[in-house]
């Protein structure tokens, strides 16, 4: 024990040679942009640089909060993220519970492999496929709908359909991949629990409810906290690719707005301020949810 401790105390500076590439990238590409966040509180001008530009305090953030589309952006962002959470969070859990109870090993491993497939297609391809399947006149979904006497519907031209397309295609893409972590947790259950349950006369359904589900609750809570903490982080890629002139009313979210005013209109300071606002809300959510989880149960992130 004692020798172990003294070995730990021998400092090994040569390990830094291995760490240097990571540290350089960390300073330049992670902390560099963090320093650049200052422009959210300045009127950034390219010639003056980040430090030389004039301080304006909260001007840009206030301008965003007071702008006419603020509530629309906030509502669209929260609609997508809450809907994604409600639909996307439970399904991988259910899938994992069901896969875990499959008896035939070969079928089980086929199911697992197959369920990961959509994770490996790109967002561009996913949106391309959505456009093909839901295209009015020629899309498969429209053929099915008209076959059953429904209307030929232009999904990408509808603001109401946007959120369903967005969230349900996301569920399709991520459910298999998301189930991995729960399947891993389920495989750690002590087999003697099942045996004694069987002796007590429990059937498979009872075991699912009384053994499987309780054993993954800590995993569920941890992932739930992390998910709520990134509620405002709706990525721009997919929403941006799915936007059409007819659905922007529902598809314009904070991140796509940041891209548009920032890079297309070159309003660097304003766009950065919008991002800062977004991160601040996220941070508050994470802290609040974590505090709540601590109060209710034992699981928390810190």
């Amino acid at each position, binding site marked *: 024990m004692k020798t172990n401790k003294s070995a730990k105390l021998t400092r090994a500076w040569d*390990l830094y040679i291995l760490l240097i590439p990571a540290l350089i990238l*960390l300073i330049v590409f992670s902390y560099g942009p*963090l320093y650049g966040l200052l422009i959210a509180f300045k009127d950034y001008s390219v010639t003056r640089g980040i430090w030389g530009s004039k301080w304006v305090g909260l001007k840009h953030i206030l301008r965003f909060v007071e702008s006419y589309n603020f509530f629309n952006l906030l509502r669209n962002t929260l609609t997508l993220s809450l809907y994604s959470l409600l639909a996307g969070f439970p399904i991988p859990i259910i899938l994992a519970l069901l896969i875990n109870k499959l008896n035939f090993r070969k079928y089980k491993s086929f199911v697992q492999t197959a369920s990961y497939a959509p994770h490996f297609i790109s967002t*561009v391809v996913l*949106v391309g496929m959505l456009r093909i*399947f839901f295209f009015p006149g020629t899309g498969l979904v429209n053929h099915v709908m008209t076959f059953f006497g429904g209307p030929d519907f232009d999904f990408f031209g509808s603001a109401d359909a946007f959120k369903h397309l967005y969230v349900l295609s996301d569920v399709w893409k991520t459910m298999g991949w998301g189930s991995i972590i729960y399947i891993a947790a389920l495989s750690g259950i002590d087999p003697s629990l099942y045996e004694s349950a069987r002796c007590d006369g429990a059937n498979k359904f009872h075991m699912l409810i009384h053994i499987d589900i309780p054993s993954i609750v800590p995993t569920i809570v941890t992932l739930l906290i992390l998910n709520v903490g990134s509620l405002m982080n709706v990525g721009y890629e997919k929403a*941006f690719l799915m936007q059409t002139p007819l659905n922007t009313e529902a598809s314009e979210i904070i991140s796509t707005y940041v891209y548009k005013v920032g890079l297309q209109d070159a309003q660097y300071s304003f766009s950065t301020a919008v991002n800062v606002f977004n991160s601040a809300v996220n941070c508050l959510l994470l802290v609040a949810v974590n505090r709540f989880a601590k109060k209710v149960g034992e699981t928390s992130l810190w």
Partner: protein
Amino acid sequence: MAGKKSEDISFDVVNVTVVSLLILMILYPLYWVLIASISEPNAVNSGNVLVWPVGFSLSGYQKLAATPSIWRAYRNTVVFAVVGTALNLFVTICGGYALSRPQLPFRGLIMKFLIFTMFFNGGLIPTYLLVKNLNLLNTMWAVLLPTTLSVYNMTVARAFFQSSVPDGIIEAANIDGCGNIRTFFSIVLPVSPAIVSVLVLFHVVFRWNEFFAAMIYITKPEGFPLQLVLREVLVSSQAAAQNLAGSGGDSKAIMEIQRQAQLIKYAAIVISTIPMMVIYPFMQKYFVKGIMVGALKG
């Protein structure tokens, strides 16, 4: 195990049915694109292709093969994936090992600085301005360097070295007078193929499918990766067709253009997605392990 309960049998029947339906839902769209890509476009558009290809035709692939921009983009993506993965692997695996050793001075402090960036980052504009000021625009480094250090992947590597490499072999090497760097490259790395495979897979997939960074940083068509060209083919060509319709070309020409566009789409999805679909089943046992190691520590 004296005879199965009837309740258990009905449970199994329901379970297998539900799981099978879910798997069908997951696989069918992918399968459909594959059969549509080798079918007659008119049959596809009128909804007659459902289970088997109808009227075998490879004209979509021929059209695609005759498009030079696709080949150039494919080459660019392969270069991005190979160079980007090599860089990421080097940085995360070396860094992850250094961070896994308790002898590293200021280890806790450095971890804090790393974890902080997982929750707070500069975001789009400050990163863009930085890349621009470094004169990296329109080079592959603009796409690669900002995401070369993945803190998440580095913590996965760190957790792996902590849990799966016995301290004994490292200490033995140190006692034999082996420096930490030599110990890492000649003793630890050779017994860690699992973590190398996981990180290679994670990163190849990320680079192959990445789109937004390239869209922001690369404006010259000769530097476009596959996903940017795919975006034009899959997402924007409808608009191109509609523009043509608006300018009043005759309807037959418009129909023909739409037919061609449709054909190319299926083939483009297939050729861009096949490499990943072929690789991942072989790496499955590794990435499942990687996710578990990452989750235990995260």
